[in-house]
């Protein structure tokens, strides 16, 4: 088991290094020159050259890559060009908001999705099932940014129950969290339904029922526990979806998180901040996948033994 954990952790390192590489390479390819943007169009060639040298942009790509990795190891993410603050500080201000939003959405999605999916499986082809399945299809098809806007129109404009945007209180969290959670609820519900249906067909469930165990016990202890393995994998993978969706949701609701920060950085060509932000997202995603892998090893003893 320990070897399993160690091996997965070790494999994560080259992936992270590769992520840094891809991020830097793409930002390099971004059209528009960061230095000219900073100094303005009327800057003298001299000033441009000097700033470029100061920022280290005149060095070849590989040198910059190694320099950056070296920096990262020391925890230095550089300074934001736009704000002239350390990137780590900018990210530090923003990530709690994103974490709050993503966790809220994930919990909501898991709770609603698993409940709806399990109920659908227990009463297949009922009215509830039909409505739930149709609802899931709609939920998967709705663009997140549109869902957010529609919710704003209904709950802020027409009903005036909830604020339009910004952060600060629980009422501010409701709409963004629901918006972000919706596609995941749909996916999780669909998967839970099929996973639980598969499990309910298994022999050991029939045995449990034949033994005379209460239906709820059969469901909770036997069925759901085994169905949980693919469900947890999906929930973990949904975190990646949620991070992508967070970028859109934060933009729509003016939520002060990493996603909104990233979009602003893109438009300002603040490549240092952008590198840091994308890195944090990717890192979070890798860590979550790792946790999912590890939980897989815990839940399914067969996997843990192989190592």
């Amino acid at each position, binding site marked *: 088991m320990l070897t399993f954990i160690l091996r997965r952790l070790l494999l994560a390192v080259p992936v992270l290094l590769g992520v840094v590489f891809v991020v830097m390479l793409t930002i390099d390819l971004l059209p528009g020159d960061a230095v000219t943007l900073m100094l303005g169009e009327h800057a003298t060639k001299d000033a441009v050259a000097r700033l470029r040298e100061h920022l280290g942009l005149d060095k070849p790509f590989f040198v910059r890559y190694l320099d950056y990795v070296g920096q990262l190891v020391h925890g230095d993410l550089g300074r934001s060009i736009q704000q002239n603050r350390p990137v780590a500080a900018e990210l530090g201000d923003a990530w709690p908001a994103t974490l709050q939003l993503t966790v809220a959405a994930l919990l909501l999605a898991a709770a609603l999705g698993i409940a709806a999916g399990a109920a659908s499986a227990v009463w297949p082809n009922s009215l509830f099932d039909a409505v739930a399945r149709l609802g899931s299809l709609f939920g998967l098809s709705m663009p997140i940014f549109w869902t957010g806007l529609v919710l704003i129109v209904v709950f802020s*404009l027409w009903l005036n129950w909830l604020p339009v945007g910004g952060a600060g209180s629980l009422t501010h969290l409701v709409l963004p969290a629901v918006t972000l959670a919706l596609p995941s609820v749909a996916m999780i519900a669909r998967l839970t339904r099929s996973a639980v249906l598969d499990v309910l067909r298994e022999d050991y469930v029939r045995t449990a029922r034949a033994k005379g165990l209460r239906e709820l016990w059969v469901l909770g202890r036997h069925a759901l526990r085994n169905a949980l393995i693919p469900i947890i994998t999906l929930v973990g993978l949904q975190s990646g979806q949620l991070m992508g969706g967070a970028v859109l949701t934060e933009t729509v609701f003016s939520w002060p998180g990493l996603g909104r920060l990233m979009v602003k950085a*893109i438009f300002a060509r603040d490549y240092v901040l952008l590198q840091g932000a994308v890195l944090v*997202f990717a890192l979070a995603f890798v860590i979550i*996948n790792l946790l999912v892998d590890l939980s897989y090893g815990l839940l399914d003893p067969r996997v843990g033994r192989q190592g």
Partner: protein
Amino acid sequence: MDAWSRFRRNRLALVGLVLVAVLALSALLAPWVAPYDPARQSLIEKRARPGGKYILGADEFGRDILSRVIYGSRVALLVGVLSAAIAVVGGLGLGMIAGFSGGWLDSLMMRAIEILLAFPYLLLALAIVAALGPGSLNTTIAVGIWGVPAVTRIVRGSVLALRETEYVGAARALGAPALALLRRHILPNIVPSLIVYATLFMANAILLEAALSFLGLGVQPPTASWGLMVSTGRDVLLVAPHVATVPGLAIMLAVLAFNLVGDGLRDALDPRLRGS
């Protein structure tokens, strides 16, 4: 019962197919079906409510929303279908190379794919689109490239599995060259699941393009893209909500259509894949 009749019995799938047909027709016949020129501005009538002269209302520049939605279907369909084609062709090629050669090449490709898939979906697409530059065609290519890693992994998996089957083993024992093996034995087995995947991919491609255009990084004005329309409609959301919400409805219907057809195809082509 063959696949087509199974598909036909699925009412939801048929609804999806009808919606896709509507989408395709409006894209093809846009110049004849749209009541107004999508770029025609009429500032006096800006933000006109739906009904009356402009059936779906007018946007912040007085342009007819219905016409822009109709023209927007061109972008949606272009991106959806073309990017799926790029992803499938690219992924098919790379997946077969990886699955068939094995060894260090396979490992290298798998590591690269793992790295690419370590990015949340939007970020990866953003990165590619940022590198290529904005615009409809670049966005299409970007979404297509974004889809290649996932398809590669699927194809590779199938190739690896099929490589070990008896009939491939027999063919090899008979001395069949690798290319013929790929073409005659492996490919026909991959095609059904690829078709399903491609259809569902089109749904996601439309969503992705809408998201990129919404952020201002995809299709650029004055091209009518639904995502872009939602984005600019956001400015007048509180006074004229229809400007932003109507194009979004179009996005949802188009995506729903492809999801329904994809689900239907999956149920029809392999009932074993269903959850019920």
